[in-house]
C-alpha cells in the first residue's frame, strides 16, 4: 500500500501519469467525480433509447413487436463479452505491474459482467418463446453466453475462495487471462458445433440489415449500457478501494473528516 511512497523516483511524464493512476486516493476522487456523471448520462440515454425503440421504431414484418427485446439483449451480449475482455486486461495489468488499483478494477468488473451475461441469456430465452416456441434453444450465441457465464462464475468463485486478497487477485488474474485467450476458441467451437447440428437457418437476433429507425435506438441503447457500465464500475471501485485501503490515512481522514 505504501509502496508508492518508497518506490524510486519516477522519471518522465509517462511515469508521473502511471504513478498517479496507481494512487488509490487519486483514483477514489476520480471515481467519485465521474460515477454520477456516467450514471446521469446513462439515465438520459436509456430514456431516449427506450422511447425510440419501443415507440418510434416500427414493428418487424416477421417478428412483430417481440423483436424489440434486442434493445436489451444485444447491448447486454456485447457488454458481457467486452467486460470479460476488460476484466482480463485489468487483471493482467495488475499481475504484471503489481498495480493494486488494476486488481480492484478487475474485481469490480466481474459481477457486472456476470450480470450482463445473465441479462443476455434471460432476454434471449424470453425472445425464444414467441420465436421458437420454447424458452431455450441451443443457439450458438446463447450457448456461448452460457459458457461465458460459467467463466465469470468461476472467476468470482476463485477470487472468493482465496483468503489473502493479493493472492486471490493474482490467481484469478491468471484464470481471466487463460479464459480470455480461450474465449474465441470456445466461441468458434460452439459455432462449428451449431452449424453441424442445426442444419436449417435459424432466425438470429440483430441481423445486419436493419431499418435505420430500428438501428438508431440500438446504438443509443448500446451507449447507455456503456455509460451505465462505466458508472457502475466507478461506484464498485470506490467500495473496493475503501475496503482495501481502510487502514490508510486518507480513508481514516475521509471517515472522520
Amino acid at each position, binding site marked *: 500500500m*505504501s*509502496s508508492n511512497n*518508497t518506490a524510486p523516483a519516477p522519471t518522465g511524464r509517462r511515469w508521473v501519469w502511471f504513478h498517479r493512476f496507481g494512487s488509490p486516493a487519486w483514483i477514489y476522487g476520480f471515481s467519485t467525480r465521474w460515477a454520477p456523471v456516467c450514471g446521469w448520462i446513462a439515465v438520459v440515454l436509456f430514456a431516449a433509447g427506450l422511447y425510440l425503440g419501443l415507440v418510434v421504431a416500427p414493428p418487424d414484418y416477421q417478428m412483430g413487436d417481440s423483436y424489440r427485446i434486442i434493445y436489451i439483449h444485444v447491448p447486454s451480449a456485447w457488454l458481457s463479452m467486452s467486460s470479460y475482455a476488460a476484466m482480463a486486461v485489468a487483471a493482467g495489468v495488475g499481475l504484471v505491474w503489481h498495480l493494486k488499483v488494476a486488481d480492484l478494477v478487475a474485481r469490480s468488473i466481474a459481477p457486472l459482467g456476470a450480470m450482463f451475461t445473465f441479462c443476455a441469456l434471460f432476454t434471449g430465452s424470453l425472445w425464444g418463446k414467441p420465436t421458437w416456441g420454447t424458452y431455450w434453444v441451443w443457439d450458438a450465441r446463447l450457448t456461448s453466453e452460457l459458457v461465458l457465464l460459467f467463466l465469470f462464475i468461476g472467476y468470482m468463485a476463485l477470487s472468493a475462495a482465496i483468503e489473502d486478497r493479493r493472492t486471490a487477485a493474482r490467481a484469478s488474474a491468471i484464470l481471466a487471462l487463460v479464459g480470455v485467450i480461450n474465449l474465441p476458441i470456445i466461441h468458434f467451437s460452439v459455432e462449428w458445433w451449431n452449424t453441424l447440428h442445426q442444419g436449417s437457418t435459424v432466425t438470429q437476433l440483430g441481423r445486419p440489415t436493419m431499418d435505420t429507425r430500428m438501428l438508431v435506438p440500438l446504438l443509443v441503447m448500446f451507449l447507455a449500457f456503456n455509460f451505465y457500465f462505466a458508472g457502475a464500475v466507478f461506484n464498485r471501485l470506490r467500495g473496493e478501494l475503501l475496503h482495501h485501503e481502510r487502514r490508510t490515512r486518507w480513508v481514516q481522514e475521509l471517515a472522520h473528516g
Partner: protein
Amino acid sequence: MLNRPAPFPDENRLEATEIECLRGFQSLFRSLSLAVEAGVGLQVRGANGSGKTSLLRILCGLALAESGSVFWNGLDIRKSAAEYRAQISYLGHRPALKGELTPRENLDVLGALHGRRPDGRRIDEILEAVGIKRRHERPSRTLSAGQQQRTALARVMLSDAPLWILDEPATALDDPGIGTLRTALRGHLDRGGLVIFTSHQPLLDTGELREIRLPGTHD
C-alpha cells in the same frame, strides 16, 4: 567419510533491504534489513507467529515481500531468479520426500532437479553421514520423523549450493542427529558457505553466528 569439497567464492553475499511483510492487513515486520557474507550463519529469532518462516520464504524467493528487495551478490533476486535458485538450498517445514520412494530415489530426483543428476556413490556417502544406512532402503513413509528430517538434511548437503536456508532444521532430530546437523553447518561455513536458519536450539558457536530478532508481542 566425506572427502573435502572445493571452497565457495569468498565474495558471496546475501542482502535484504527494507523488507516489509504483511499477514492479512497486519504488518508482521517492516523496514527489516539484513546481510550475510560467506562463512557466516544467521539465526532468525522471534516468537511463534512473528514471521520467521515468512522471512525465510521471502529470502529464498518463494513469497513476495510487500515492499523491499533481496539481493544476491548485488543482483535483485527477482531479476535473476533462475541463477539465484541455483545458489540456494531450502529446507522447509515439510521434508519434501515422496513417501512411495526410498530416500535414495528421493535424493536422486531432487538432485537432478537442482541442476545435474548426482552420482550414486555421493548419495550413499551423504546418507551415511546423516545416519541413514543402506538397510533403510525402503519407502520413505516408513521412516520416523527424525529419519525423514535427516534425509531432508542430506538433500541440502547434496545440493552443493552456497546458501542454505533452513527452517527449524533441528525439528524431530535426536541428540546424535543434532550433532550431525551441527557438524554439517560448521563444515558448510568452513567451506565459505552461508546459512540462514531458525531454531530454538543453539546450533552454532557464537564466533560464526549472527542473530536477528523479529519484533513480536512476547519472547
